[in-house]
């Protein structure tokens, strides 16, 4: 895929990519933002999904979702932004990393699952499909976390 290699090399040559690579502390700062933001995503979704499974029945599901979903979305945007900045600083290398490729695929799958969840109004229905979607969501996001860590190990 020669075009891809050219695009990646082009991105690697962006001045901002160079700033991120060459600064002593920018990269660890981005890692910190990435992980704090993603911890927020995962924590918010975890609470929502535990509630969907039946934990804490005294907590009304719908208002909980009104808090958890926007928090997860905003935190995801922040995690993605920090992630993209790290990506462009090492585009060629990261895109060729199998763990990174699987991670992107899992994020896409988790996103599609979340869309489906809200499209069919799973919160209001609160049925067995909603529970299955919640289980799938936790599993996919755990996979995303594992693949994110594995980028540095394969």
């Amino acid at each position: 895929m020669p075009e891809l290699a050219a695009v990646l090399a082009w991105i690697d040559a962006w001045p901002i990519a160079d700033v991120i690579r060459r600064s002593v502390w920018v990269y660890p700062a981005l890692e910190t933002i990435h992980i704090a933001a993603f911890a927020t995503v995962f924590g918010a979704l975890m609470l929502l999904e535990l509630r969907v499974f039946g934990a804490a029945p005294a907590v009304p599901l719908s208002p909980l979702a009104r808090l958890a979903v926007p928090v997860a979305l905003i935190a995801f945007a922040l995690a993605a932004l920090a992630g993209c900045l790290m990506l462009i600083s090492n585009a060629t290398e990261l895109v060729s990393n199998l763990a990174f490729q699987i991670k992107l695929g899992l994020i896409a799958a988790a996103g599609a699952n979340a869309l489906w969840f809200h499209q069919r109004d799973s919160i209001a229905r609160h049925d067995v499909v909603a529970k299955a979607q919640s289980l799938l969501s936790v599993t996919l996001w755990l996979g995303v976390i594992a693949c994110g860590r594995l980028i540095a190990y394969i």
Partner: protein
Amino acid sequence: MKFRYLLQFVGAALLIAPAVAHHGWSSFDQDRPLYLGGIVSQVKWQNPHAEMTLRVDVAKLPEQFTSRALPGQQQSVDAAGILKKVQVPSSAEGAWEVELAPLSRMQAWGLSQPLKVGDRVEVIGYRLADNNKRVVRVEYLFVGDKAYAFRSAPVN
């Protein structure tokens, strides 16, 4: 035009692209410390870790190598044991990729300026377990009469 490329990039990122680059520390063979000596031919002074290409031109261990003084560092490392085991890999001569440490660690050792192309350096490092690749991660780096140990921070 560039936008179309970006779309391709995102699309292709989901596919299996050929693996070219880096590996976790555990993929290096830590039981066989290797000695490489030569001239720096390329340097990438960057995070998450610095790298260089070393054009190796030394085919056997220098005299008195095993009695070299190694610097103290935070983590206790069996430096004498490593020195005792170190050997020059077969067909050492030629280009090797050498993986160093994050920039903050390089700085902690006083290496805030990049090594330069043309510098003569020596390393003790571990080869990638996949022996087809001439890639080592550094345990010790020698530049002139200075020695650096990147496993951990220096002892002050």
